[in-house]
């Protein structure tokens, strides 16, 4: 037996040492009473840990999400008990549904006060159960190293997700003999399911016989760092691919096999072909209703191969004829080894007429409207050109999010950071902060609406304090645009609570020491974008866009593909 070296220290110090042992160098958060012993010890570690003080705990959670999504490492949040902790809930729910590795450490009242309605006590373990992959309340310092090690293992392996560690104040203060050992195994937890060769063979057989195969790419490819494995598979088989918005950057926008976006506002051809293909290969995606719409009329003709790490997703929405459980990083190469080299020219060519229809009915109008007023798509497209498709694109939620997903150019992976499953307005600005902190050498451009930016606008303060070089592009249509669009299409244009009277965003930016300008006309667009990109620090560009623009095509919620509308 080897002797384990220990060192006597407080729980707060042990938490910091544990984080350092896991390679953490960045934290997002906000102090408060119950977490003060931790912040006191943090004061001694400012050389090793970059602490980003956000202006609201929700901002810290979304920033940590942005950080996690660009780096692939868990984002770490530290907040206090009670309101500090409850302010994290939206971020947790967002991370849960979008499989983002997040570790939230919250202060908690001293253990002997638990359950007494003490000041700033809240049952965070109870509250966060439905929105965390795992949570744990530390009441004794001896628990710290083991629990932190488990938290990292659980948050970042398997299907990643958020973890909450609720840290009672007494355990932060008390001393104990500390030593740290990373966790690689929990007997009740399957980080990586056993891959069954039988299903690999069945899948390969189906693919080899397929005449009209279609691959659907989800975020699982990015979470599994399997982008190369994906391209190898697609290029060997010659299978055309389409993506969910979280899977967008897994394949370069210009790749010849990239057929575009799936779902409600996705491209016409891949949505149409979903209902024509003979084999549907779903790779790390979960058949969300925004992708499938009416599941009873979704790909009924196809044999479905589902590559998925989470067994609860198999047959959840769409029946899988071949359930290929496992990390796509491992299953894709196994599959690639067994499939035949192929080209599906005729099948791929059959996408073109539908792409042409969409080009004429939607894209040409979006990109060359001929009008003086600027369209969102023109902005997204131009920024894509001027950044060479190398920027990290962050979005908020709404029309601009769909337009950005449709028109943004992504040459590399981890380049579209957006709130997919939860659709969290207010996600964008803090997520962009986290993305820039995580990828300081990349250009980070945020597209945000005039509604969403006001939900977390206080994070301009964070940008100011740390000089975070985020490029903020407000696409201002003076409406809550997506809700307005639905009101126009489905509620007889009764614009109930969607028009917005907005503040002067440039003056607000100025108050935070952030440069910016506002433009109204198309002639000014190109120069304004260049001015923005020429600035090394943060910048706010407000663009007045067409007030009642709509996002098309659109498959109305819950309806079959045939209900698609183009204008």
């Amino acid at each position, binding site marked *: 037996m080897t002797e384990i070296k220990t060192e006597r220290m407080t729980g707060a110090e042990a938490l910091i040492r544990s984080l350092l042992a896991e390679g953490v160098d960045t934290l997002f958060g906000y102090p408060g009473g119950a977490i003060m012993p931790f912040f006191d010890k943090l004061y001694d570690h400012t050389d090793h840990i970059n602490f980003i003080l956000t202006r609201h705990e929700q901002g810290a959670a979304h920033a940590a999400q942005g950080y996690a999504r660009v780096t692939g490492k868990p984002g770490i949040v530290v907040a206090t008990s009670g309101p500090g902790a409850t302010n994290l809930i939206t971020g947790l729910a967002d991370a849960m549904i979008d499989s983002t590795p997040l570790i939230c450490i919250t202060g908690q009242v001293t253990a002997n006060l638990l359950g007494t309605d003490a000041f700033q006590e809240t049952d965070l*373990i*109870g509250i966060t*159960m*439905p929105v965390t*992959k*795992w*949570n744990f*309340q530390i009441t004794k310092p001896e628990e710290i190293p083991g629990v932190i090690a488990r938290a990292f293992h*659980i948050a970042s392996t398997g299907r990643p997700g958020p973890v909450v560690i609720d840290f009672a104040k007494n355990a932060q203060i008390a001393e104990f003999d500390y030593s740290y050992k990373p966790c690689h*195994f*929990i*007997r*009740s*937890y399957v980080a990586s399911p056993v891959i069954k060769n039988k299903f690999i063979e069945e899948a390969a057989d189906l693919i080899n016989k397929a005449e009209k195969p279609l691959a659907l790419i989800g975020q699982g490819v990015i979470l599994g760092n399997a982008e190369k494995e994906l391209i190898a598979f697609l290029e060997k088989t010659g299978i055309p691919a389409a993506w969910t918005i979280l899977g967008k950057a897994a394949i370069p926008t210009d790749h010849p096999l990239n057929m575009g976006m799936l779902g409600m506002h996705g491209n016409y051809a891949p949505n149409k072909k979903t209902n024509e293909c003979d084999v549907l290969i779903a790779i790390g995606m979960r058949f969300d209703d925004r992708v499938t719409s009416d599941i009873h009329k979704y790909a009924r003709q196809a044999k479905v191969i589902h590559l998925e790490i*989470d*067994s*609860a997703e*198999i*047959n*959840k929405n769409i029946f899988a004829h071949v359930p290929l459980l496992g990390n796509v990083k491992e299953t894709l190469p196994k599959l690639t080894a067994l499939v035949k080299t192929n080209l599906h020219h005729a099948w791929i060519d059959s996408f073109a007429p539908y792409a042409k229809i969409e080009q004429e009915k939607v894209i040409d109008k979006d990109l060359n409207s001929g009008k003086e007023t600027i369209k969102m798509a023109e902005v997204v497209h131009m920024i894509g050109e001027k950044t060479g498709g190398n920027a990290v694109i962050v979005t908020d939620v709404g029309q601009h999010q769909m337009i950005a997903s449709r028109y943004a150019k992504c040459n590399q992976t981890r380049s579209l950071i957006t709130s997919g499953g939860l659709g969290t307005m207010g996600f964008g600005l803090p997520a962009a902060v986290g993305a820039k902190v995580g990828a300081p050498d990349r250009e980070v451009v945020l597209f945000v609406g005039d509604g969403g930016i006001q939900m977390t606008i206080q994070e301009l303060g964070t940008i100011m304090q740390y000089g975070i070089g985020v490029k903020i592009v407000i696409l201002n249509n003076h409406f809550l645009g997506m809700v307005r669009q639905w009101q126009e299409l489905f509620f007889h244009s009764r614009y109930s609570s969607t028009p917005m009277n907005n503040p002067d965003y440039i003056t607000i930016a100025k108050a935070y020491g952030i440069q910016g300008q506002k433009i109204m006309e198309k002639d000014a667009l190109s120069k304004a974008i260049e001015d923005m990109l020429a600035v090394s620090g943060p910048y706010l560009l407000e663009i007045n866009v067409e007030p009642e623009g709509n996002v098309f095509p659109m498959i109305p919620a819950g309806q079959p593909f045939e209900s698609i509308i183009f204008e």
Partner: protein
Amino acid sequence: MEKEYTVTAFSENNVGLLNRISIIFTRRRVNIESLTVSASSLKGIHKFTIVCVATPEQIEKLVKQIEKLVEVLRAFYHSDEEIVHQEVALYKVSTEALMKSNAVESIVLQHGARILDITPDYVVIEKTGHREETQALFDLLFPYKVTQFTRSGRVAVTRDTKERLTDYLKEMDFLERSETSKER
């Protein structure tokens, strides 16, 4: 078609797990009919026995969600034919009712129930069986004034020759590993 299922989940013994399991039912609007938590035949592993009414599709998804929980080792579901199951019921009636005639005593005898406790004031009767059986006894005793009645959650064992979990644990090498981890 909805029918009755018995879910068995094997887990670590951790605070809060019951809550995590129950919210999986709540969120999908499936009512838990009965619930029992106990030790299993495997050391250190706890067993949840949950009875609910659901469709085959619902129950399959539900059990996968339970199994997905970090602290759950495996979860299974069974229809009634696949298990041997029992519930225990306790009935309290007045001693006077028992003494007045032979009626109560003969009901108790006919139903394979037994008297656990007799005091000057009351008698406690116990009956083990299926829900319908314990309910039938309640209905018969009702005219004699049942002052208290309680029925336990279902306990069940499968008709398999051993605990299904054992094979899984052996396959995953978990039993051995958990031994060695204790040594450390």
